[in-house]
């Protein structure tokens, strides 16, 4: 089974990298961009096919390593 974990900064946490990207897009004259927040994507392959145990394993992975829950949120998407 394949899964995608998306880690994003919590609302209110300053994102200087996102701000810099915002500035670069403005200098490229990409119109209509209001704001940019940078995050991380992890594409993960899992050995089993059970959705519940895959979700449980990925939750552990997020809580223990992939996200720092002081500043980041995570989302788990299981793919067929």
């Amino acid at each position, binding site marked *: 089974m394949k899964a995608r974990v998306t880690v994003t900064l919590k609302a209110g*946490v*300053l994102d*200087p*990298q996102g701000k810099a990207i915002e500035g670069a897009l403005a200098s490229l004259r990409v119109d209509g961009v209001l704001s940019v927040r940078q995050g991380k994507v992890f594409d993960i392959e899992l050995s089993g096919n059970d959705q519940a145990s895959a979700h449980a394993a990925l939750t552990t992975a997020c809580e223990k*390593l992939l996200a*720092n829950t*002081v*500043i980041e949120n995570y989302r788990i998407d299981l793919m067929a």
Partner: protein
Amino acid sequence: MRAAVITFPGSNREGDVARALKQAGAAVAHAWHADMALPGGTDLVVLPGGFSYGDYLRTGAIAARAPIMDAVRSHSARGGLVLAICNGFQIACEAGLLPGVLVRNANLRFACKRQHLKVERCDTAFTRAYAPGQVIDVCIAHGEGNYICDAGTLARLENKGLVAFRYCDAEGQVTVAANPNGSLNGIAGIYSESLNVLGMMPHPENLIEHLTGGIDGKGLFDSLLGRSRAA
């Protein structure tokens, strides 16, 4: 005083901090990230500066999950001293030894320069050789030293006197201009609740010889060896 300096893949200041500890009179042992136990009789664990695991994922995140860190957490829980400098501070936060997290400097620049710090309190194992409110001149070298935490944690740090050092100017004024990275309340270093863990971004180990710029960092190592400020 027996110190154990832990080296992770990508640590690069373990030699300098070992030298500062030896100069102050400590017996220094080196430990490796993959070790399961600290050297026998360890009084002080040092997490040195560097770029452990190339700062992959988040600074300090992977080192914080190294095998030796369970032993470091047990040592800390027993009240053992832990000194975490720069990348060590990032590792200590990721390992749950200290609250909060260090994120990218607000101006996105790697800060490598001399920096004044205000010593907030002089009654801890790390600072008793300094004078109350003393301004010391040390070095910083980091890209991710911007300390942040939630409002409740910040209030707790302030109310319980757990801020160890703040960035300041030469006169000891804690100002926005003197803050090199955007840290909340100018925080450069913090203590754990029981004052046995100190995490700090600046490098006191750089300032232990007049030959290389000054000795304002020596007080921290002298403090650890039990020397107090001359009355």
